């Protein structure tokens, strides 16, 4: 069956527009920190804590500027 892509896209957009306008009224009630997970911080576990010292050393050596464990970059410099 060949689907009518243009029509489906138009319909999806109409539905989403309708939903977005229904949510407009609550937007001001919300907070910016909507991605916070509070007590739900990512836990790297034992696997995540293992650091390859050699790799870290090379990466930091390659960085134009570094400070202890961090690579320093100028904000927006990559744009």
């Amino acid at each position, binding site marked *: 069956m060949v689907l009518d892509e243009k029509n*489906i896209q138009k319909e999806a957009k109409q539905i989403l527009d309708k939903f977005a306008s229904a949510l407009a009224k609550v*937007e001001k009630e919300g907070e910016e920190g909507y991605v916070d997970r509070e007590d739900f911080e990512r*836990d790297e576990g034992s696997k995540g804590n293992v650091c390859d010292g050699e790799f870290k050393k090379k990466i930091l050596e390659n960085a134009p500027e570094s400070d202890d464990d961090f690579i320093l970059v100028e904000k927006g410099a990559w744009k």
Partner: protein
Amino acid sequence: MIKQKLKDIKSGKLTAEANIKVFLEEIKKRNKELNIILHVNENALAEAKDIDARLKKGEKVGKLAGLGVVVKSNINVEGLIANCASKTLEDYKSTYDATVIKKLKNEGVVILGMANMDEFASGSSGESSAFGGCKNPAVLDRIPGGSSSGSAASVAADFCDFALGSDTGGSIRNPASHCGVVGMKPSYGSVSRYGLIDLSMSLDQIGPLAKDVEGVELVYEVIKGKDEDDSISKDFQSDKIGKTVKIGVPQINADEQIWDLIKVKIQQVCDKNGWKADDIELKHIDLGIQTYYPINYVEFFSGTRRFDGRKYGKKIEESCGEEVLRRILGGAEISQAEFAGKYYRRALIAKKIIEKEFIEAFKKYDCIIMPVTPKLPHKVKDKLSVEDNYAYDSLSVLANLAEIPAISIPVGDVGGIPIGMQILCKKGNDSLMLGISKEFE
């Protein structure tokens, strides 16, 4: 029911082979008519025989040894087809076991086969499978619900002891309600999603379906817990059920016949146990659908970019059905307009508001009870508008948005159509929810 069977298998009164054989014969006899199973595990009987042999030798075989499970076709089981009921992944054979499957296999469960479902879990009627819709064994002329249609139907049709489904906006609870079985969506993060082919990762959750709460509980106890392969997974400490339970009943628009059944049940259980139920107001719960779908569209669009034809053979946009294409095109549209924050950002803010509303409600109440769906399942051949189809999810999406556990348990029927009641608890209180649910059976 399952507990007794487990005892019988361990004592030798029933063999794992006999148990699995009955299910395989039932599948062979009725699957053509019901279209519940997409792929049968040809090794199931041999695996059951192996369990019996190990039992005879006195070896450890696991807590659920000899039971048979049907798995939704979006969960990876090594060697079986996980096609998400889509032509896009038609011949995709899993190369590994999802964490939940590993855990079940470790406990001696035999995989019977892979269940039909709405294509890529994008649906709530069970009709959008690329391999034909699945029938509702409880009432053949009505839809089974979805998207875990085959999982719920396989329990209702006695094709297995229990089934696994996934629930992003009600996909376990909705078909459980329509097929007259029990279906549980655990708290977000309490069961590993490693090996689940995602629909919307910030909302997806794997959960069990069975004939009764006890069966669901047994499976949940095995599959729950922190998994190194799913960074959001976590061990939760659930409260235990106290002498008194306070129930909140929100004022929600739903079919009166459904509400009547639920209210009678609440009254009966409160009278029997000395529990208390209050009508409550949740201000923003009517925004569930409007919040859920923009998030679902964006995350689904993002997740399906890997199906570009290079690794899995077919490009999704060229091989999928209408609802999947709608979500992809809609998601692409929202992503383009994201800088304006009109859709996704607004939906995330509303999600947080709904989540907080439930947190506040659970400070006063141990659980909240409401219908699973606001209306009865439609007849198989009826054509519904997109928005009428989405309306089925209006009450079930709330638990996903609030990241809380929710369960659907049968509460009666309307003219022979099974009706489910939804019990929701605070995030992490999955065991409390199961304890409360038992009183409603």
